[in-house]
């Protein structure tokens, strides 16, 4: 066994690092590093830089503007960009919709929508969840009724991340009430500017509004916006779940955050010594580091198997669970380090250009909010309980 990257992969890693060095705006990296809010323009700026280099949708097939990278190269790319504190690529268009379009959509749909994702013309959001359909997604009720060459859509989606910025939403809608619930669901693309759509922000516990409710009242959607066949939407949505998710564990983001955590532990004083020398805090840090190192190798093992053609199912769930747990633990250690200074809530300090005097340690302002906000990691993308159900069924065969 040998855990080193191959010489080719090392060369590739250097190429990525050079690119990041040259092209990642320090302004953006600093915002990510310090936990300031990213605006829509910030995200678009980074997308455009990646697109210029041809790396925005690196996992797409080359004919549509992808790179032809191996899974390992994609992993290295994700690792290095996260370590450099690059903004995360917004996944809805590039990673959630595009693979479905490429596999199940028409040539025409691909030709129309994919370039617009790449050049930033269309911002997409994901309309799956409903108030009554969370973990039990198949119980969704938003209805699309065919009338001539249109569907008339009525219902409500919720938790729509960044829907406030979106031009388009891809939705799972009910087109039939017969047979199994899963067999009456279709995959529909809807222009957010269509009359009858209303977006209402949901304020989360940290005070931010990144998710929304989206209401549909008699919304007219052309039938050509159906992806694939009617009543096959569940298959398409599930394809995404087995679609190789190389970055589901967020190892790169965790490594970047761990570095910052170590910095903080070395410079934050409690009882006259740095936190890193407090035996209890040091033990927490060490456990986290061990878990992260283990996770890195687990992730590489899964990637290696995926490269050899094994579709990860239970493995994806394992990576999702432990990856999110590690990130949440990291947020916990950050807020602990702040001591009582986790409590002050200086909202403006999270905005770019804030130059007020920091309250307490200069890094403390966002840490409690991030801890609370990242409770979402174990809830969305299939809750960690649902992931455990998948493992139970898929590998343990219980």
């Amino acid at each position, binding site marked *: 066994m040998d855990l080193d990257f191959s010489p080719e992969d090392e060369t590739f890693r250097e190429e990525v690092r050079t690119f990041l060095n040259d092209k990642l705006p320090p302004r953006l990296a600093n915002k990510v590093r310090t936990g300031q809010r990213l605006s829509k323009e910030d995200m678009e700026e980074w997308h455009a830089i990646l697109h210029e280099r041809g790396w925005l949708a690196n996992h797409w097939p080359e004919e549509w503007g992808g790179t032809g990278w191996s899974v390992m190269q994609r992993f290295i790319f994700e690792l290095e960009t996260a370590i450099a504190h690059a903004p995360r690529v917004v996944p809805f268009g590039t990673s959630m919709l595009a693979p479905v379009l490429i596999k199940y959509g028409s040539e025409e749909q691909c030709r129309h929508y994919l370039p617009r994702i790449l050049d930033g013309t269309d911002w997409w959001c994901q309309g799956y969840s409903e108030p009554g359909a969370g973990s039990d997604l198949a119980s969704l009720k938003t209805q699309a009724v065919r009338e001539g060459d249109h569907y008339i859509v009525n219902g409500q989606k919720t938790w729509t991340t960044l829907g406030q910025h979106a031009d388009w939403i891809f939705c799972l809608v009910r087109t039939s009430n017969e047979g199994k619930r899963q067999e009456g669901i279709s995959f529909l693309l809807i222009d957010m500017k269509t009359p009858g759509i209303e977006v209402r922000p949901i304020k989360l516990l940290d005070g931010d509004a990144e998710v929304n409710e989206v209401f549909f009242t008699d919304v007219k959607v052309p039938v050509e916006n159906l992806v694939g066949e009617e009543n096959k939407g569940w298959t398409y949505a599930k394809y995404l779940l087995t679609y190789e998710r190389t970055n589901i564990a967020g190892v790169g983001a965790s490594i970047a955050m761990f570095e910052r955590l170590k910095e903080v532990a070395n410079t934050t004083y409690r009882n006259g010594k740095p936190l890193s020398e407090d035996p*209890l805090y040091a033990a927490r840090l060490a456990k986290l580091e061990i878990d992260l190192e283990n996770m890195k190798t687990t992730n590489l093992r899964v990637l290696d198997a995926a490269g050899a053609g094994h579709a990860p199912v239970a493995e994806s769930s394992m990576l999702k669970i432990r990856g999110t747990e590690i990130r949440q633990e990291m947020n916990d250690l950050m807020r602990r380090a702040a*001591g009582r*200074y986790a*409590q002050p809530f200086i909202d403006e300090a999270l905005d770019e250009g804030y130059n007020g005097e920091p*309250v307490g340690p200069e890094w403390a302002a966002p840490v409690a909010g991030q801890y609370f906000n990242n409770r979402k990691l174990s*809830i969305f993308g299939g809750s960690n309980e649902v992931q455990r159900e998948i493992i139970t069924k898929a590998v343990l065969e219980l």
Partner: protein
Amino acid sequence: MDFSIGEDRQMLVDSLSRYFADKADWKVREAAIASEAGFDRDVWNGMAELGVLGALFGEDAGGFGGSPFDIGVVFKEAGRALSTGPFLATLMAGKVLEAAGDADTLEGVISGEKILTFANDPAVSADGRPVDATTAAKSGDGWALTGQKGVVDYLGSADLIVVTAEMDGSTASFLVERGASGASTRDYPLIDGGSAGELTLSNTPAKLISDDAGAIDAAIAAGLVATSWEAVGVMEVLRDSTLDYLKTRKQFGIPIGKFQALQHRMATLALEIEQAWSAAINAAAYFDKDTATRDRYCSAAKFSIGQVGRLAAEEAIQMHGGIGMTWELPLSHYAKRMTMLGHVLGDDDLHLSRFIELSKAA
């Protein structure tokens, strides 16, 4: 042995809980946490009228209670109602005044007329190091204080501040009045509701309360008892609302509480909260023993509520799913408060270390 809180305290609990329900419902709290002060002054004064603040202090100090259990029951109710206001600051600063026999100053506080706060911890500077301790120097007949204190509860509303400072090599307590010369403040809201501020003193005139450092330790110990009982109140609400949700939220055609995975998690949570409640009771019950015993049980309690509190907050959100993360649902505010109580007066790590040290000495 007797685990009842006693008739008088039960009456206090009942009237306080009725008062919160009538006068301080969720709407009132929302307005309060959006306000600059971070609490509702009318609610506070009404509570004072009910005698709630008097319950925190003994008769000699103008109160009618003051025992750890009196303190505990008040804070537990405040926790259940998620009430914001200078409860903890009033208690700790008030205990310092009480120990020094300063009933005159306390009178205006117990009546609600004056807001009192407690400035003990040094500020932490941008580089992560605490600033030097505040010092007291003789100035004419009185004293002058210089230094910076961090995260002082409800500083913006405080008429009176009990400040700890180094005097002749030991820690003493002083009283500083609002607007005293050389005093400046920077106020901010807190993520779990309420407000606090940074206090800078520069040759600020102050009245010596006492040079008894032990009185400050005792006040902090009372604060630990209070925080532990408050935390139990918060956790009970987290537990009960989550239990309710498990019974009513349906997925896959059945209440999610039918899933064994969640049942066992809920069972663990219920068990742990009972343990935390026992820890809080211990802290109150051993309070009047020798100081080493008192401090051991206070640290045991703060450690326990830190551990269990994190579990309760995280599990409550998780078992609610997305809705548990919303501002609109009171539960998320209980979870935030619970988490932040872990940061008040030292976290579970700090109190575990302290417990180990105190046990070695015993």
